[in-house]
């Protein structure tokens, strides 16, 4: 069993990876603004994630505020501002962003390991804080959270919920 994610990866690295993904997929002039503080605030919106299986087992989750998903999809697909993307396109965009984030995070972890197929839906249950690296960010004012969490015991809070 590998060390917890907090010993393998820090938020700054995850933010840097996400910034590169954003520039390449969302647009060269599109920037993710890093959030403040070590723990992301709650983000109310859909999530997409991929599993990583290997010496470190866990999941990489992208959660985007519901207010931003259509805008994000329009940017990735280069649609017109007044064009409404389909729900299928929104999910596909979130899945693919999570997939690429996951692939790049995986490359920073001990290997060999395998990446699962991306999924969407309600965020997976949160893992123990000691095995969770979570960063917050915003894009065009829409909050986002990127969570790299181990497959440890899953207590009862959704991934993006701040524990009381």
């Amino acid at each position: 069993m590998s060390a917890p994610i907090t010993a393998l990866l820090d938020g700054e690295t995850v933010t840097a990876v996400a910034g590169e993904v954003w520039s390449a997929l969302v647009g060269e002039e599109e920037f993710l603004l890093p959030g403040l503080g070590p723990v992301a605030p709650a983000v109310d919106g859909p999530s997409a994630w991929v599993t990583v299986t290997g010496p470190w087992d866990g999941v990489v989750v992208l959660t985007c505020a519901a207010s931003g998903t259509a805008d994000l999809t329009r940017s990735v697909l280069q649609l017109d501002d007044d064009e409404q993307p389909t729900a299928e396109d929104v999910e596909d965009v979130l899945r693919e962003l999570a997939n690429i984030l996951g692939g790049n995070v995986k490359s920073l972890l001990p290997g060999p390991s395998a990446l699962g197929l991306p999924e969407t839906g309600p965020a997976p249950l949160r893992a123990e804080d000691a095995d969770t690296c979570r960063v917050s960010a915003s894009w065009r004012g829409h909050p986002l959270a990127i969570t790299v969490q181990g497959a440890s015991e899953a207590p009862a809070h959704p991934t993006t919920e701040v524990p009381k």
Partner: protein
Amino acid sequence: MKILVADDSRVMRQIVVRTLRQAGYDDVDVVEAEDGADCLAKVGSESPDLVLSDWNMPNMTGIECLRALRAQGSAVPFGFVTSEGSPEMRETASDAGALFLIAKPFTPDTFRDALDAVLA
């Protein structure tokens, strides 16, 4: 010139095609496949000059597709466009007969660097 783009994500197929155009490959015909099994079938029916394939796909993965093609005697030029680019995966891809592996996220320059030699 015909390129077969295989990815289970329609969004990613669209981005790959867009990047091909941005990289200057304006005049290539593009055919799309939605997983490895579809890719395998379309190599037979479409006779592409190059396959650009994702790695992780349902039904049949990209590496399984490549191995099946080589087992059938197909020598179609094959490159991966995938979210993972570890040294182990590059070695696995190369051993199976892939010409290159482009890791996502990519740019038009990345495409030109990998494809120019193949499509020249």
